[in-house]
């Protein structure tokens, strides 16, 4: 149709198309938002205890992520399945017991200071033995929450280990190391945690890609 009515329809269609495109645009930035994981809390409301079971893998695989060759953290949910989520919702003033199974080899630290665990309740245990300091060539990853002062180097799987895990999720029958540690959450807040080992193979200084993307080697502790 011609005339003002036609123009009005044209403008309205333009506005609608623009709205849809803007919606797509904004959602493009929201994609990749990791869904938070809330482990079950035990104990009293004023001093809860939480158990968190984590896994670090050398290649996260195509079923769990769009980047199959990236390193990643995984968390075991209440059903026993491994999920790729790095945002953990934890209660305030809680004691958090973490068991971490590492299936990845050594990358080594850039700053050897980060081989000394800090901020824990008790000591870090690697395969059941307490750890005072890890030599800088060894750490495969770290779990660190700088705002809480927590730093835990993760022991590596040997380079020549048999039965190494390929793509995640990795079964406990494959070569792995077990690291356990405990820390306290304090006041409610939004704390970031990260790996400090240059483990992003192929990226400059090992700190690109999975090391700079929430959902792989970085995440949040949502303390509520």
């Amino acid at each position: 149709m011609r005339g003002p009515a036609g123009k009005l329809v044209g403008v309205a269609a333009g506005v609608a198309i623009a709205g849809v495109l803007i919606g797509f645009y904004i959602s493009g930035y929201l994609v990749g938002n990791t869904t938070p994981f809330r482990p079950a809390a035990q104990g009293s409301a004023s001093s809860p205890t939480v158990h968190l079971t984590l896994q670090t893998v050398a290649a996260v695989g195509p079923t769990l992520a769009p980047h199959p060759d990236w390193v990643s953290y995984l968390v075991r949910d209440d059903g026993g399945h491994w999920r790729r989520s790095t945002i953990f919702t934890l209660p305030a003033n809680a004691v958090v017991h973490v068991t971490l199974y590492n299936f990845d080899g050594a990358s080594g630290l850039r700053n050897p200071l980060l081989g000394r665990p800090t901020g824990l309740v008790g000591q870090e245990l690697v395969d059941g033995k307490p750890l005072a300091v890890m030599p800088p060539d060894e750490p495969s990853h770290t779990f660190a929450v700088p705002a809480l002062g927590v730093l835990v180097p993760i022991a590596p799987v040997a380079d020549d280990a048999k039965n190494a895990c390929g793509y995640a999720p990795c079964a406990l029958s494959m070569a792995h190391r077990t690291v356990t540690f405990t820390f306290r959450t304090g006041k409610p807040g939004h704390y970031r945690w990260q790996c400090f080992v240059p483990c992003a193979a192929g990226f400059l200084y090992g700190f690109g890609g999975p090391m700079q993307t929430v959902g792989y080697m970085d995440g949040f502790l949502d303390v509520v």
Partner: protein
Amino acid sequence: MATPAIAGGGRPVSHGRRFLLLWLAACVVVTPLVAIFLGSAIPPGNGSEQATSQVFDNTLMLALLTPATLLVVVFLVYVLVSFRSRTTEVVDGPPIRGDSRIQVSWIAITSATVLFLAGFGTYELVQSGAGGGQGPDPAFQPPGHAKALDVQVIAQQWEFTYRYPAYGGVEVPHLVLPANTLVRLDVTSLDAIHSFWAFELGVKADANPGVDNVAYVTTKGPLTFDIHCAELCGLWHGYMFDTGQVVDSATFAGWIKKQRAYFAPVLKYLPPYAESYLPDPAKRAG
């Protein structure tokens, strides 16, 4: 500009003189208000000698630039009120194309102000370095710098760590400084470009990989200060903050002793203290 013009009632009106009087009145009214409301809040505060010198600088510039702002704002308001067109049909104004006296005075006054500010800034800089990073070869060093306490600030993605060569080269994750001490901060990076910004201390020095960026700070009394990274360095740039402290010498001595004891097992793994550490892995890992 002081040429009188005959306005509606036949009285000569000296717009120029009126404007200058209005401007002076505005300065007299506004400058004290600025001094009262902003005077005590001029950043970054008095946490260190360098911070104090920045406060002085900022205060002086605010004092100079307030009348300059008022000059233009009052002029605009005056002109828009006095010279708006009062006829519906379009009438032309007088064909004034220039006035060399005004041009020359304007150039002279702006040049003098600007040169003064440049000279004053240089003076403040020369005094103590003003807390800024000066590179590996600092040109402006406070007196007594040869005996300064050396603290190396190591920036990495995404945390600052600190090394004290005078205390066995111990490296710690939090910064504590003794009061009333001249400190020489050697800021370097292990990977990307960061920037060490200790707000209340008035220190800002970029951390470049392979480079030792020196900044001096003379601490005063006990203080808690915020440390932020001021150069975009990747994902957690916005979370790369910490809190540092200035404490009295006895507390500092006790603190550093505890840190040395706690980090003793890792000391043998730290590289020998050096002015900078090249990023490693050098190329791409894995």
